[in-house]
């Protein structure tokens, strides 16, 4: 049984959250059954809907991996949002200047610059934790807001173009991710492939390499790991940097695959969603892919619900409850065991 808890807990948590959210929908005078049908149709009901869901899922896989990798390494990277913004912002600055470059060069340079920016932004928090003990949760929150305002400034002044929503110019065509599929106006870029590859790489690194073993050891018990010859301060900075690179990549995918320019704040809470996704996916790369798909579907489906007069805030309620239940896995365990015991008695 113990082996399956990692799967059972998130699934039961999601179901319980959907049930509780149904009561909230009921309380504002709507039918929860109808709402959920609209939601599922909105997320998977047509080719366009499915493409939309996958497009939304791609960056979420990456922010989920970013946070999940951090958890495995024993750091709480709450700053995926800021790292994603910095990644996209840097990739924008690089991508708009690559009109002369051939695609393979433009693509790789833009992607790498974005990942490095995310890594560097996260490494600030890692370095501060290692050197001064400043808690990474608080420093990354600060870095999130600094990144938000910095990017707002950048697209309003140095990179600004046109009027209306603050935005940068479009990146060079050679720096746009190739389009895999087109349904009407919707394009699905290679972003989802990048995300899945990243998940596989993370799985291999964590499970099959010495580095992965060290990272997990440091995350599991830092004192024992240090005694065993693993440098904790180096590990913290490096783990944060890798986590940040993944979040930066999320920004890159969103930029190069969807908007093709830095638009508004770009991240739109996807970095924060990464925290929920990592928790629901139990920090396992494969789990994270499914959790990201769930969040992507909820986000896409809730847009449809909004048209039907049900606020898409319902997603936040579902998300909040799922996180509570997954984090407090004792509640779910007790619920399941209690039901079993009743069955045995009966």
């Amino acid at each position, binding site marked *: 049984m113990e082996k399956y808890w990692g799967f059972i807990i998130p699934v039961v948590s999601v179901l319980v959250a959907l049930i509780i959210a149904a009561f909230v929908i009921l309380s504002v005078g709507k039918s929860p059954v109808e709402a959920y049908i609209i939601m599922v149709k909105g997320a998977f009901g047509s080719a366009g809907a499915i493409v939309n869901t996958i497009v939304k899922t791609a960056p979420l896989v990456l922010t989920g991996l970013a946070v999940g990798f951090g958890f495995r390494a024993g750091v709480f990277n709450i700053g995926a949002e800021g790292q994603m913004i910095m990644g996209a912002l840097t990739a924008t600055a690089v991508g708009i200047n690559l009109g002369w470059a051939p695609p393979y060069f433009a693509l790789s340079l833009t992607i790498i610059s974005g990942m490095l920016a995310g890594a560097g932004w996260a490494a600030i928090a890692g370095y*501060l934790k290692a050197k*001064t003990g400043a808690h990474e949760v608080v*420093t990354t929150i*600060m870095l999130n*807001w600094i990144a938000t305002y910095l990017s707002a400034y950048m697209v309003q002044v140095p990179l600004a173009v046109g009027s209306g929503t603050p935005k940068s110019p479009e990146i060079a065509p050679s720096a746009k991710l190739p389009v895999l599929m087109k349904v009407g106006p919707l394009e699905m870029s290679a972003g989802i492939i990048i995300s899945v590859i990243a998940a596989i790489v993370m799985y291999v690194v964590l499970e099959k390499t010495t580095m992965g073993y060290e990272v997990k050891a440091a995350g599991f018990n830092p004192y024992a790991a240090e005694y065993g010859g693993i440098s904790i301060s180096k590990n913290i900075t490096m783990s944060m940097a890798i986590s940040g690179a993944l979040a930066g990549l999320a920004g890159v995918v969103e930029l190069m695959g969807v908007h093709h320019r830095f638009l508004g704040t770009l991240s739109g809470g996807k970095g924060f969603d990464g925290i929920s996704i990592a928790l629901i996916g139990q920090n396992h790369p494969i789990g994270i892919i499914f959790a990201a798909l769930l969040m992507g579907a909820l986000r896409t489906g809730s847009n449809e619900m909004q048209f039907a007069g049900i606020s898409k805030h319902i997603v936040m*309620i579902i998300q909040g409850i799922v996180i*509570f239940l997954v984090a*407090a896995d004792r509640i779910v365990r007790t619920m399941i065991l209690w039901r079993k015991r009743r069955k045995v008695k009966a």
Partner: protein
Amino acid sequence: MNVEGLLSASIRYGTPLLFATVGEIITERSGVLNLGLEGLMLMGAFTGFVTAYSTGNLWLAFTLSLVVGALFALIHAFMSITLRVNQVVSGLALTMLGSGLSGILGRAYVGRPAVMFQPVAIPGLEKIPVIGPAFFKQDPLVYVGYVLTFFLAWFIFKTKAGLTLRAVGEEPAAADARGVNVFWVRYLATLVGGALTAAGGAYLSLAATSMWMENMSAGRGWIAIALVIFAAWDPLKAMLGSYLFGFIMSLQFRLQATGEVHVSANLLLMLPYLVTLVSMVLFSINESFRKRIGAPSALGVPYSREEKT
């Protein structure tokens, strides 16, 4: 630019931050980290507005927002103190729940005007040049903020109960050995902190404006978390920090209104976070400095009688 007007606006912008910051100071002093401030403020703003809208009674609205804030914080208390769930995770979930719930329940109330607190001048004091109109010609909740801050500063540092609160946040095991009920103190501190934070939200819908907007706290909960550190867990410094940031906010709005580009606006808004980040580094570098004014030692660490940390 009119100095009196600017100062007066700084106080008004600073007051919701002040309520949330001193609330979080109480909570963190007991060793509980609550990152759910944004959600709590939204629930407070929503509760306040709906009550004011349907009854027209502002003080009842304010009181109910305190109650709802405490109840909402009870979720975090139960999760982090009783179940010993990761406090960061629980706080984030609380924020999501608060924004989601207030957003969906409040949808019907968007754009409807209600009543709001009006400025009341304090006779005598309002006559002081510049300071008088800025500090003593405000709405009653601003005055509540003054009294609350001084009361809490006295409570935390000068009373036996305040000493107990700090002891629980620094050395829960030692406090437990002295016969203090660590769980009870932490529950109480989290509930009181939640109530005050929600009151900060209520200020937004009852005094700063007279309406409800989705997500109207607009990141103020996170600013309060920065301010707690900036203020080194001291209510008096929190007052200074809140009004200082209120000043930055009102300055930014004026710059925007005068059409002076948004350049300075975004960079100005970045300042509090930058300053907090730098001050965190400075606090952390020096060990004795950290002990004297740093975070409560047991902050974010769940307490269990069986496990020794």
